């Protein structure tokens, strides 16, 4: 869409974090379908640490800010939510302070969709990608870039422990304009 909208202008401030990862039933994790890469890393703390479901390991950047995590999908996908695990108590000045999320077809046309500021977070931090209007509920994109613009206490390199990407579940019934909601319909709509 050519028109400029106000999306990405407002900044959200997030404090705290959740100890348990709780996500809406309509959403599913989509990170495994994507190719993941990072702008830089220390040996032994590479990109795989972001996706190993282990909160004790982390990705550590090794270079100048901003630090990037690039998530590229093979096809255009609908995304709604990014969840990251950060731990200020353990990582201190390595904890991200300001995070910006961009989306686009590839590296050449990334556009900012959300910027959030974190305040000493420990736990899962939810970053919704939805805009204010109904048609901006989802981000339709080939690529997502999560960039760490700054850290806490002026730290240089950053630690991220986990990243999860969520999009809406597709309609369980193909070629149907809307999803069924009532039990009368859902029990009859599939064979198992």
């Amino acid at each position, binding site marked *: 869409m050519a*028109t400029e909208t106000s999306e990405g202008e407002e900044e959200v401030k997030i404090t705290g974090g959740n100890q348990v990862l709780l996500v*809406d*039933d*309509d*959403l599913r994790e989509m990170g495994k*379908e994507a190719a993941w890469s990072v702008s830089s890393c220390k040996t032994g703390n590479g990109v795989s640490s972001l996706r190993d479901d282990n909160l004790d390991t982390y990705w550590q950047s090794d270079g100048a800010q901003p630090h990037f995590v690039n998530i590229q999908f093979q096809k255009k996908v*609908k995304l*709604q939510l990014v969840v990251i695990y950060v731990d200020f108590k353990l990582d201190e000045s390595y904890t991200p302070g300001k995070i910006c999320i961009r989306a686009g077809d590839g590296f050449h046309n990334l556009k900012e969709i959300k910027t959030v500021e974190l305040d000493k977070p420990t736990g899962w931090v939810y970053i919704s990608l939805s805009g204010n*209007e*109904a*048609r901006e*509920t*989802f981000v339709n994109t080939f690529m997502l870039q999560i960039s760490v613009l700054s850290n806490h206490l002026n730290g240089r390199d950053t630690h991220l422990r986990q990243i999860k990407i969520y999009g*809406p*579940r*597709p*309609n*369980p019934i*193909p*070629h*149907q*304009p*809307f*999803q*069924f*909601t*009532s*039990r*009368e*319909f859902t*029990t*009859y*709509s*599939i*064979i*198992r």
Partner: protein
Amino acid sequence: MLGTSEILSLLGILGEGYRLSCLYRCQDALDVFLKLSHKQYNTSWVLSQVGKSYFELVDYLEADRAFSLARRASPYSLEGMDIYSTVLYHLKEDMKLSYLAQELVSTDRLAPQSWCAMGNCFSLQKDHETALKNFQRAVQLNSRFAYAHTLCGHEYVSLEDFENGIKSYQSALRVDARHYNSWYGLGMIYLRQEKFEFSEHHFRMAFQINPRSSVIMSYLGTALHTLQRSEEALSMLEKAILADKKNPLPMYQKANILMNLEDFDEALEVLEELKEYAPRESSVYALMGRIYKRRNMPEKAVFHYGLALDLKPSATDVATIKAAIEKLLVPDELQDYL
């Protein structure tokens, strides 16, 4: 002599009932089982066959009743318990289902049925990865157990891994070519992948095996419609409506096809009828909204879209419906810009 003929007639009834249920003539099978004496009918084998027949007739409440009686008659029998867990899955009885799964696993942790129940339990919680692992364990325990392969296929589909889904369904069919659930599963995958000829073929195979299932007829109708064979599609859906009056799916699909054929009045008529049957179904109102929009009746469209939104549709549909409403409220000359 008298005893022999009595036993023969008993076995005759049991055999006939089993034969009919294998042919998926489930109502006939139920009628045959009713000929049994009270004592024979209340054995766990017969009750679980009865449950299976109700399951095939998509009468899950009756199936639940029969299976729970069967369990009471012999709590350690595993016969049909995989199906029972699927019945509870359809009824969304998560508590009963997890209890059943626990009991079965503690009864026999080497039986595929136990792990099918466990998998269904996780699948109902939308934890499809764990569900898949459980079904794979069932396959490991007995690779000749067709239903476990099929359930693996369903989970792969939920995880959008269609390649492995197809493989699982095909392994199920290698074990039992008459296992129509797998033909149906393959049809669904091809329908999603827009390989419509394949889809039609597989739904038709399922239909030939179980020609009384209104659900299969509905999807066969959908597949025919995607192949631009709308006449055939509508007559197939008509058949589905007659086969099971309680199934709203073919009526909804009929309305959808009629809308695509721009026969708006008739589509609305069908939807009005559906509204009576399932007053809390969001998708019915959403489709009505869409039709009114195409008929250039914005007030009515907004009204029905609003009703659809009140009934908690999925987030995707909320976005679609809200966007449609926004477009309705924009004057025509501006519409091109959106």
